[in-house]
C-alpha cells in the first residue's frame, strides 16, 4: 500500500474537508436555537419522581451540548489527520532512504 506524496496530501485535504464542514456548523445550532420562539410554559413537570429542579435556563445546556459534540468530533478528525500526516511523512522519508540505498 504505497502512499505517494500527492495521495497523502489528498487524504489530509479530505480529512480537512470533513473537519471544516463540521466546524462550519458550529454556528448552525446557535442560529437555530436563537430562532426558536420561547415556548410558553406555565408549569414545569419533571420526568419521574425527582423534585422540581430550579429553572436553570435550557439554552446554554442545549448549545453547550451541541458545541461539545461538534467540537469533539472536529478535534478527533483533526487529531487523526495530523497523526496520518506525520506517519505518511515518515513513510515517504524512509522510502526515499530505501531507494537511495538501492533496495527499492
Amino acid at each position: 500500500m504505497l502512499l505517494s506524496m500527492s495521495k497523502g496530501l489528498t487524504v489530509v485535504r479530505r480529512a480537512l474537508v470533513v473537519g471544516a464542514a463540521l466546524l462550519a456548523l458550529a454556528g448552525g445550532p446557535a442560529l437555530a436555537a436563537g430562532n426558536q420562539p420561547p415556548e410558553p410554559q406555565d408549569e414545569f413537570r419533571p420526568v419521574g419522581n425527582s423534585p422540581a429542579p430550579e429553572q436553570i435556563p435550557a439554552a446554554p445546556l442545549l448549545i453547550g451540548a451541541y458545541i461539545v459534540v461538534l467540537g469533539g468530533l472536529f478535534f478527533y478528525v483533526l487529531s487523526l489527520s495530523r497523526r496520518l500526516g506525520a506517519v505518511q511523512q515518515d513513510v515517504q522519508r524512509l522510502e526515499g532512504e530505501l531507494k537511495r540505498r538501492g533496495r527499492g
Partner: protein
Amino acid sequence: MPKWFTPAAILCGLMFVVSPVLIARAPDESAMGMVYKIYYYHMPSAWMFLLAPLVCGFSSAMFLARDRAKDDRRAFAAAELTVLFGALTLITGPLWARRAWGTWWVWDARLTSSLVGWMIGWAYLILRRYGGPGSDKLAAGVALFGAVNVPFIYISVNYWRTIHPPTTVVPRLPVSMGVPLWFCVFAFLLLFVLLMTMRLRLEAARTRLDALYVALDE
C-alpha cells in the same frame, strides 16, 4: 482512501449542517421543553457508543481466531471510537439530565454500565500503548468482555428502576420527532464509517512504517 470517501464526507458534512435546522423545527417536549433536543445528538452518539465496542469485540474475536492483522487494526480503530462516542454521550447526557432530572448524574444501571463500558475502552487503549509486544492479543481478550457489556447497557434500562428513559421511547416517537432523530442517526452512522476508514488508513500506514524500519535495519 477509497473513491467513495470524499463524496461521503461531503454528504456527512452537509447532513450535519442541515441537522440543526431539522432539530429546530421539531416540536418541544411536553415535560422537558426545549432542552430535550440534546437528545437528537445524545442518542445517535449513544448508539455509536454501543456499536463501536460490538465492532471491536467482533473484530477481536476474528483476530484471536484467524490471527489476521486486518482484524486487529479494525478492533483498535473501533476501540478509539468507543472512547470518542462514549465521551460525547457521557457529556451530553448529564447536560440534559441537569435540567430534566435536576441532577447531573445518578448511579443507575444504565449510566453505571455505560461508564464501565467507556472505561473498558480506555483500558484497551492503555494496554495497547503500554503493554509492550503481544498486547494486541491481550487487548483482544479485553475487548471481548467489553462487547459482552453492551447488551447489558442496552437492556438494563428496561429491567431496573431508573430515571433514564427506557428503550420504548424510540419506537413510540411521533413523526415530527422521528424524522430529525433518524436523520441524525444516519448522519452519525455515516460519520462512524468515515472515521473508521480514516483510522484504519492510519493503522495501515503505521504497519507500512514498521515494515520500512525493519527493511532499513537489514
